[in-house]
């Protein structure tokens, strides 16, 4: 029943796919129940957001925005030759484009507020990333990041020391302590056999890593496989398939609307929009609650190539599609009744020194580590969420290495996929891989790391120097997980998705930010200038009043008794300007008679004689004169008796 007058809405198949029903994010039912992202702020960390464009402006949130490339609060993108800085505006449109404004498209969370942090359009350092990830983190709830290290199939990089610290600080202290939600795109390196486990943003436990599927539900040519991918949502595919329609910038060649937004760049903002819908119905979801709900509700679907594997907890994961397709209806209904997951428990194994050779395929090196009940007693960890492995392996050609991890249940994760384009001779140096494929499984048991050399150069020998296992999870037992799965399925009818049903939310924490909404240097300078001008004018005016009062007091009529002010005729009251003071200057009429005043002296207004005509004199001719256009300078009164 949802109709919008936005001209491109009918072409937004990812919102409502009329051509292939079901091949969309299933959001219209959520909108019908007034869940549109109200009260939630999403920030696009990118090359800027053109917030003046008609489709963005009403939802724009300046308090959550900043420009780190130019160091000012306005993240407007700068036009460049390649017409390239439209990226952030397109992502913003996907999230919160305004409906029913007869312009372009509609956002997934069109009731939410959208902010922008411009950081990609200039030199970028670790410290700038750290500032970006926590910028206005009590205002911004969700950070949408459709970027990452190069997807060239030979890069191994991610957040450096400060970026990591900022991500961690964000989930601990952001969003009033419930944790900032970081949504990242898994990467577009599919054609180079890239894998998002070589991207530290994508395989971080603090981020929601989102991949893409095309309109036919298949992995697009550019998508990457990844054991740490949580879920996928729609984006463009090859040339024959439709891409995502969203707002565009209108600078350079931009028209304000595009039908060509694609890549995992387009998928991540759709996920951010759906998470905003979740936070509207349950603002106190923690960053881990959001990840759990995605795992519990993503839908597996038929794709022969996807190689789905169901783990011990009943969750099916594919290296291509994560736990499956995001479904807005399922996400929001689950969020509505979700009670928070217990605290994050973790276990870190000792650094396991191995110094063993990595044999050539089909042989492989297997190393094991047993996690006992005793090991987990301290933390209370029972079931798994993320599992991370930090490895140091020397090898003359890094891309020839293949690393697999087996959880106690036997669930296999290909964490280090071979990459034919990666000829880097430095191997892995304390690089951390991670997997979500064992989510919900028991933590206790034997973990197995299997490494082999799939290269075809005969004499190269890789050495596994050391490795370390880190388990993240909670005190939930497998039974708790099954109960929660059943509870969520019971909520999918939508019976709880109305305003009368609300679970209590604990209050958030009051966490001050480094700098709230600060005044910019330029504004400060302007204020100082205006202030100085005002002070100068005030002093001048007081002096003038004082001097004119003294000259009146020393006039002949005053010495023997009360001063007599010149009368104010009726005509003068309408024509002359009333200013709050005593008369500036007492002028006699040309025939020498002083105008008599019958009434009491009025101090309510300055009597400014209307003697000047257009062009007779201008302030600039008298540098000290104040800026009164009608006042007559003393020298022009030579012919008359000068009273001042």
């Amino acid at each position: 029943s949802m109709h919008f007058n936005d001209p491109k809405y009918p072409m937004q198949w990812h919102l409502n796919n009329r051509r292939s029903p079901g091949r969309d994010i299933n959001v219209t039912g959520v909108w019908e129940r007034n869940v549109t992202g109200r009260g939630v702020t999403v920030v696009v960390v990118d090359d800027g957001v053109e917030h003046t464009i008609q489709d963005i402006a009403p939802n724009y949130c300046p308090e959550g925005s900043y420009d780190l490339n130019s160091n000012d609060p306005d993240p407007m993108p700068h036009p460049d030759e390649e017409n390239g800085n439209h990226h952030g505006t397109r992502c913003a449109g996907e999230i919160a484009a305004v409906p029913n404004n007869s312009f372009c498209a509609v956002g997934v969370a069109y009731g939410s507020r959208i902010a922008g942090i411009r950081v990609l359009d200039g030199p970028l350092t670790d410290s700038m990333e750290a500032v970006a990830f926590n910028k206005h983190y009590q205002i911004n709830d969700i950070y949408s990041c459709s970027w990452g290290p190069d997807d060239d199939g030979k890069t191994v990089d991610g957040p450096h020391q400060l970026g990591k610290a900022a991500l961690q600080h964000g989930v601990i202290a952001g969003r009033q302590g419930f944790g900032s939600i970081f949504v990242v795109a898994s990467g577009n390196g599919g054609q180079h056999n890239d894998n998002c486990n070589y991207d530290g943003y994508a395989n971080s436990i603090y981020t929601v890593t989102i991949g893409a599927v095309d309109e036919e539900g298949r992995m697009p040519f550019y998508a990457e496989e990844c054991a740490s991918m949580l879920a996928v949502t729609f984006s463009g595919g090859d040339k024959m398939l439709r891409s995502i329609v969203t707002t565009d910038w209108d600078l350079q060649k931009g028209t304000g609307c595009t039908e060509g937004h694609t890549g995992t760049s387009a998928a991540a903002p759709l996920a951010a929009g759906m998470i905003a819908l979740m936070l509207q119905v349950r603002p106190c979801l923690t960053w881990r609650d959001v990840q759990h709900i995605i795992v519990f509700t993503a839908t597996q679907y038929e794709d022969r190539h996807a190689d789905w594997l169901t783990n011990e907890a009943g969750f099916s994961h594919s290296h291509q599609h994560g736990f499956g397709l995001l479904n807005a209806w399922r996400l929001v209904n689950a969020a509505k009744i979700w009670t928070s997951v217990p605290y994050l428990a973790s276990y870190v194994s000792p650094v396991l020194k191995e110094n063993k050779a990595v044999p050539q395929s089909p042989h492989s090196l297997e190393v094991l580590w047993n996690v006992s009940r005793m090991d987990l007693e301290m933390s209370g960890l029972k079931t798994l969420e993320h599992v991370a492995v930090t490895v140091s392996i020397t090898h003359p050609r890094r891309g020839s290495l293949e690393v697999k991890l087996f959880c106690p249940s036997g669930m296999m994760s290909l964490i280090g996929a071979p990459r034919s384009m990666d000829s880097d001779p430095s191997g892995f140096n304390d690089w951390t891989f991670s997997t979500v494929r064992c989510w919900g499984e028991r933590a206790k048991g034997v973990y197995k790391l299997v490494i082999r050399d799939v290269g075809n150069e005969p004499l190269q020998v890789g050495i596994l120097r050391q490795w370390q296992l880190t388990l993240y999870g909670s005190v939930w037992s497998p039974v708790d997980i099954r109960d929660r799965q059943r509870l969520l399925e019971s909520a999918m009818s939508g019976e709880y998705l109305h305003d009368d049903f609300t679970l209590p939310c604990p209050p958030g924490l009051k966490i001050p930010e480094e700098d709230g909404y600060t005044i910019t240097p330029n504004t400060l300078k302007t204020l100082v200038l205006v202030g100085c001008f005002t002070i100068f004018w005030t002093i001048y005016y007081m002096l003038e009043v004082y001097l004119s009062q003294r000259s009146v007091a020393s006039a002949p009529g005053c010495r023997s008794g009360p001063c007599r002010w010149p009368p104010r005729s009726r005509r003068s009251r309408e024509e002359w300007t009333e200013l709050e003071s005593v008369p500036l200057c007492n002028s006699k009429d040309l025939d020498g008679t002083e105008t008599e005043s019958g009434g009491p002296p009025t101090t309510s207004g300055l009597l400014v004689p209307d003697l000047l005509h257009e062009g007779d004199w201008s302030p600039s001719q008298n540098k000290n004169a104040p800026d009164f256009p009608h006042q007559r300078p003393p020298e022009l009164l030579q012919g008359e008796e000068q009273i001042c």
Partner: protein
Amino acid sequence: LAGTGGTDTQGIGGLSWAVHLDSLEGEQEEESLAQKADAVAQAAGLVNAGRIGELQGHYLFIQPVGHKQAMEVEAMRQQAEAVLARHEAVRWHSEQTLLKRAKR
């Protein structure tokens, strides 16, 4: 500069270091940490550009303004590295380098 987005000016170019200062027990006071940062920056021949975002005890030190010859810049880098490496108040430091990121 602290708290006024000072660290955000860093992207303009020139040498810069991120520094994590040891804060003594109870020395949470931002003021005293900022003063300590100023002192360490001065000792290293740099300027304290303020705290890095919301990260407690993390500061950005940048090269003083003014164009310098390559030789001078290299000398400044070595002096700063030497001072920061030895300074007891510095728990960790890292010269900031450019990161290569791609839109997806």
